[in-house]
C-alpha cells in the first residue's frame, strides 16, 4: 500500500469518522492540475478539429499520393460519400452545402490552441518528470506477458482493480507515449506541410513526406488513428467507471466508485 491513492480508501472513507477530509486531501492527486486543464483543452480542441476536418474533407473526398492531384487525375482512393463541390464526381445526385469558410477558420484556431496547450504540457511533463514517472514503462511492464494481460483483460470486460486506479499499466503507458510523441507531432507536421507559406520557408517539411498530396493523405490517416485512440480511450474509461475516472480528470481525485452488483 505504498502508493496510496484516494481510491484505496472507499471503505474507510465511507465510514466517515475514521478518515477526516483533511487526511484525504493530503494525498497526492491522481492527475496534477496542469494535466487536468491541458487534458480538457486538448479534448475540446480535438473535437473542433475533428468536426471541421470532416467538413473540409467533404469538399474533396479524394486522396492522392505524391505532389499533385485533381479531379482530372486518378486518386489513390475516394471516400464513398457525397461532396460539397459540384466539380467532384461522387455518384450522388446532390451537392452538400459549402461550410469551408468557418471550418477552416475554426480548424486553424483550434490547432493553435491544441499546439500551444500541447507545448505547455510537454514542457511541464519534462520539468516535473511526469513522463518519466507516470508514462515511461518499466522493463517488467514491457514483457509480452504483461502487455498481453493488459490487452486481454478489457476484452473480457474485466474492470481494472482498485490498485490500477492510481497508475497506468505498460500497455497504457506505451499508448499514451505513442499518442503524445508520435501521432500528435505527425498530425501537426503533416498539417503544417499543407500550408503553402510554411512550405515556402521550410520546403523539407513537404518533401520529406513525399509531397503535398502525400502530406494530406498522411494527415487523414493519422487523424483516423487519433480517432481510434479516442474510441478506445473512452471505452476504457467507461469500463473502469465513467464517473470515477472522469471525476478524477476534473477534480484530480478518484472518488469511490459504485460497484455493479
Amino acid at each position, binding site marked *: 500500500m505504498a502508493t496510496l491513492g484516494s481510491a484505496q480508501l472507499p471503505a474507510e472513507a465511507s465510514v466517515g469518522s475514521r478518515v477526516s477530509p483533511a487526511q484525504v486531501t493530503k494525498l497526492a492527486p491522481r492527475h496534477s492540475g496542469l494535466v487536468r486543464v491541458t487534458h480538457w483543452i486538448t479534448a475540446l480542441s480535438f473535437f473542433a478539429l475533428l468536426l471541421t476536418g470532416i467538413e*473540409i*474533407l467533404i*469538399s*474533396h473526398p*479524394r486522396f492522392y499520393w505524391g*505532389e*499533385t*492531384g*485533381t*479531379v*482530372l*487525375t486518378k486518386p489513390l482512393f475516394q471516400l464513398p460519400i457525397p461532396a460539397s*463541390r*459540384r*466539380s467532384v464526381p461522387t455518384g450522388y445526385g446532390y451537392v452538400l452545402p459549402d461550410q*469551408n*469558410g*468557418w471550418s*477552416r*477558420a*475554426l480548424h*486553424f*484556431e*483550434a*490547432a*493553435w490552441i491544441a499546439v500551444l496547450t500541447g507545448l505547455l504540457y510537454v514542457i511541464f511533463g519534462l520539468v516535473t518528470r511526469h513522463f518519466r514517472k507516470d508514462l515511461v514503462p518499466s522493463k517488467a511492464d514491457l514483457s509480452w506477458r504483461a502487455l498481453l494481460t493488459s490487452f486481454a483483460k478489457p476484452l473480457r470486460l474485466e474492470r481494472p482493480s482498485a490498485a490500477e486506479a492510481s497508475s497506468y499499466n505498460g500497455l497504457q503507458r506505451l499508448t499514451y507515449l505513442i499518442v503524445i510523441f508520435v501521432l500528435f507531432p505527425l498530425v501537426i507536421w503533416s498539417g503544417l506541410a*499543407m*500550408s*503553402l*507559406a*510554411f*512550405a*515556402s*520557408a521550410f*520546403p523539407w517539411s*513537404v518533401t520529406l513526406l513525399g509531397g*503535398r*498530396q502525400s502530406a*494530406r493523405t498522411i494527415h487523414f490517416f493519422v487523424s483516423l488513428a487519433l480517432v481510434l485512440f479516442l474510441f478506445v480511450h473512452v471505452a476504457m474509461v467507461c469500463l473502469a467507471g465513467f464517473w470515477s475516472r472522469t471525476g478524477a480528470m476534473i477534480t484530480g481525485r478518484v472518488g469511490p466508485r459504485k460497484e455493479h452488483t
Partner: protein
Amino acid sequence: MINLSRRKLIVTGLAATAGASGLAVAARLAQKYGLVPPDHGGIYGLGESLTYGSQRLLTRHSLAREFPRSRISPRPFPNALDPLTEEFKRLQAGGFAGWRLSIDGMVHQPASMSIADLKSYPSRSHITELACEEGWSYIAEWIGVPLSYVLQHVGVRPQARYVVYVSMEPNTWDSIDMADALHPQTLLCYGINGSELPVPHGGPLRMRLPRQCGYKNIKFITRLTVTDSLKGFGKGVGSAASEAGYAWYAGI
C-alpha cells in the same frame, strides 16, 4: 494562513496585471509591424491573427517551392467559373485588345495598361503549384509580369500598406499586404505552360500568388488600388471572400 493567502493574492494580482499589459503591448507591437490581418475581429480573429502574424514573421521573404519542367501536371484543372458577363464576352470577341488594367490609389502616376503594355514589360515565369483550399493541387508554369515591377513603374507612395485587386467578375475582389505585393513570385499572370492564359484559368489576366491558396489567385483582373487602409473597401475586412467567411490570409 492569512499571510499566505495575502501573498497569493498579491502574486496572482501582479501576474494578471503583467499578463494583461504584456498582451496589450504585444497587440500594439503586432499592429505596428503589420502582423494583424484586416479580418482580426470575431471569434476566429485570434486564430487568423496568430496564423498571419507568425507566417509574416517566418515567411516574409521565403520563396514558394519551384519545380523542374518535368513535373508540370499534364492537365491543369481550371475550377468552375461563374457565367461570363456580357462585357467580358465583348472583350473576348475582340481578342482582349480592349482589356485595361487601371492602377490608382497611393501611386505617383495612376495608369491604365493594356495586356500588350503588360507583355512589353520584363516577364518572369515560375513553375509552381496551385493549391485549392478544398485539397486538390497541380503544377504549372506561370508567366507574367511581377506585380512589383508594375508598382515600381507607377511609383508607390511610402505609406502604402495594401494592394486591392478587382476582377471583372461581379463582387470579386481581394487584397494583399506589401510583403506579398512586392514578393518576386507575385505575378500579374497572362500565360501558362508556354501559351496564353486560357479564359477558364483566368485569362487574359490573373493574380498569381504561389504562397497563398487558389482563392486569392483571382481571375480577370481589371483594377489595382494601392492603399494604406482597407477600411474603405467593402465591409473593411479585406476581400469579398472574407466577407463570405473565408480567411483574408490564405497562406495556410
